[in-house]
């Protein structure tokens, strides 16, 4: 009896023994930094004096921060919308052509370029030269073929610059969305689509009533991944404008507060806000994975 109890206890310890290294590493590299960041966000710039919520008040009231929030929202809407919808359209359309793999490779290729590299490349594309001089930026060079051409400062014009940056993000990520969605599209039983056609559905109906519902779980996963991605957007903005001319985003502001202004309190507060915004998305993702595992 007693022996059995001890044995049982021993056995109960085993899972913990296996988990211990992972828990230890996670605790040290994830849980501890998070708790420390929250703690630092309540202190002043030099982490010496307790300042309560004033770093958070800064984050939600100051104009540079409000601009950053606005821009993150712009990114969230346009980036997610275009990467997912274009990815879906490409996946479905290119499935029907003979040179599918070539086209898909080309669209996927930007994924292989680092964000910093992409930023540098697109900075050249958006480059500005005065009217009358040879345009070295591809975009202005193309436009210069039209009549009444005025070169545009894509990255300094406050009407165009945010969209110019978002476009770079879409260019990089649309290939990723396409590949995942394409795999899911190819997983739809062909009999189902054929059956609907036999029943008299036209192509639009097939797309909206069969393909979309069948792909819904994958679309949701891709969309949430893109949202998490876009909330953390940093590299493109840092390289191309560094947040000047109203293109600031939350992550770039955090970097500035931390590494340029040495304001640990504010940088930590912004990090915590970013974390809180991303957590709901993570929960949605984790729940979906669990459901998929069960089924």
């Amino acid at each position: 009896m007693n022996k059995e109890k001890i044995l049982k206890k021993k056995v109960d310890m085993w899972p913990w023994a296996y988990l211990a290294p992972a828990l230890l590493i996670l605790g040290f590299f994830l849980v501890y930094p998070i708790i420390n960041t929250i703690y630092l966000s309540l202190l002043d710039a030099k982490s010496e004096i307790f300042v309560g919520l004033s770093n958070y008040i800064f984050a939600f009231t100051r104009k540079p921060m409000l601009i950053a929030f606005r821009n993150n929202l712009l990114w969230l809407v346009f980036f997610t919308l275009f990467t997912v919808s274009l990815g879906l359209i490409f996946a479905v359309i290119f499935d029907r052509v003979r040179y599918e793999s070539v086209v898909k490779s080309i669209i996927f290729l930007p994924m292989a370029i680092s964000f910093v590299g992409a930023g540098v490349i697109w900075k050249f594309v958006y480059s500005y030269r005065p009217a009358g001089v040879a345009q070295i930026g591809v975009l202005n060079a193309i436009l210069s073929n039209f009549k009444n051409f005025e070169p545009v400062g894509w990255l300094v014009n406050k009407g165009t610059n945010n969209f110019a940056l978002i476009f770079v993000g879409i260019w990089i990520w649309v290939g990723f969305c396409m590949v995942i969605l394409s795999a899911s599209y190819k997983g739809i039983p062909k009999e189902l689509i054929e059956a609907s056609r036999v029943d008299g559905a036209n192509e639009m109906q097939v797309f909206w009533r069969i393909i979309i519902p069948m792909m819904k779980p994958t679309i949701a996963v891709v969309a949430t991944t893109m949202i998490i991605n876009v909330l953390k957007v940093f590299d493109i903005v840092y390289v191309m404008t560094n947040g000047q001319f109203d293109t600031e985003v939350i992550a770039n502001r955090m970097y500035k507060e931390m590494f340029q202004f040495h304001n640990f309190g504010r940088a930590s507060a912004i990090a915590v806000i970013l974390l809180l915004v991303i957590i709901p998305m993570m929960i949605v993702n984790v729940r979906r994975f669990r459901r998929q595992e069960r089924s």
Partner: protein
Amino acid sequence: MKKIFIVFMVAVFAVSMMLAGTGCGEEAAAEEAAPGAVTVIGTWGGDELTSFQEAVFPFTEDTGIGMAFEGTRDLAAVLTTRVQAGNPPDIAILPNPGQMYELAEDDALVDISEFMDMNELNSNYAEAWLDLASYDDTLYGIFYKVANKSLIWYNPSAFSAGGYEVPADWDELIALSDKIVSDGGTPWAIGFESEAASGWPATDWIEDIMLRTAGPDVYDKWVNHEIPWTEEAVKEAWEVFGEIVLNEDYQYGGTTGTLTTNFGDAAAPLFTDPPGAYMHRQASFVTGFFPEGLEVGKDYDFFPFPSIDPEYGVPVLGGADLIVMLNDTPEAREFMKYLATAEPQEIWAASGGGFISPNKVVSIDAYPDELTKKMAEMVVNAEVFRFDASDLMPAAVGSGSFWTGALDFVGGTDLDTVLSEIEDSALDSY
């Protein structure tokens, strides 16, 4: 708490270095100084470092004291870490006095007046230089390498072809700009883009103007935020700045051109035929960015940024590297004493590269060409020399809202909005 975090990060770094194998072993060994040597840390690299090493060479020959130089672009972070870890280098070369004040406050610096010949220093340096190198009336360093920022570059051939003359004051400068416009040309080539540091060239303009419209005393108050950004004197300087940068006809490519052009490329239109622009305001180092094959005096030359209010004359705005001591060793003392003599500075001056010493023992003849001589004379004889204000302000202002504000102002945001936003950030940064 932060200290623990830093120590932790260093530990992580050390472990990862060990895991990375021997790749960095050689570098680390090179930094370790032999006994009887001084360890020096600074941002210098490339030609600058070679020239500095040449300048130190006679010292090593005479005394047997060697120098182990550690170069880093991220001086502030490396130095902070080493000081906190109790392992500072003997000597540090700081790019601006701001960091010296921080180190002095942490008692990390050695009072050099204890062993340097103060009579000599007092006669060799203008008072302004010694004041700038002091904190709480204690002298902690010597200024070594000065950059002269109050320069307007022009192309003498293009000037004479157009019949233009070097202006003597601001009104003449504006008159000249108008004349160039009416002749169908563009007076100014300007570039404020500098990747993640975009905006700094604009702040240099404003600082130069501020020194000339408000004078050095108001300038100092402005730097220390003893007057708000919305003050009339500050506003006036920005308005004068606006006379040039808000005038689309004055700038090569208009305001969009100014905002999108990298500072290094900005001067290029001066050297095309016909010239795309005629004048370019930038510090002495800009010659390094000029196209190759240009001739000093014929293709390019400079005139001092002219006086605006005659009361304040022609002050010099600039930057300067300063040498401070963190460990009080006999070798480091000898090293500092040697650096303050004429020999190393004249060796460096002769090697070119735009080295200008604020030290009067350095003979003007030591500089290799007329252009550098002119710049050096401007610095040594300047009645008023002021440090680049944005380098002295807290980073959140000096390399944050001031840059952003200057760019927004050029982009068309109205002045009151710009200034009140900078003031907002200044209020909680000092």
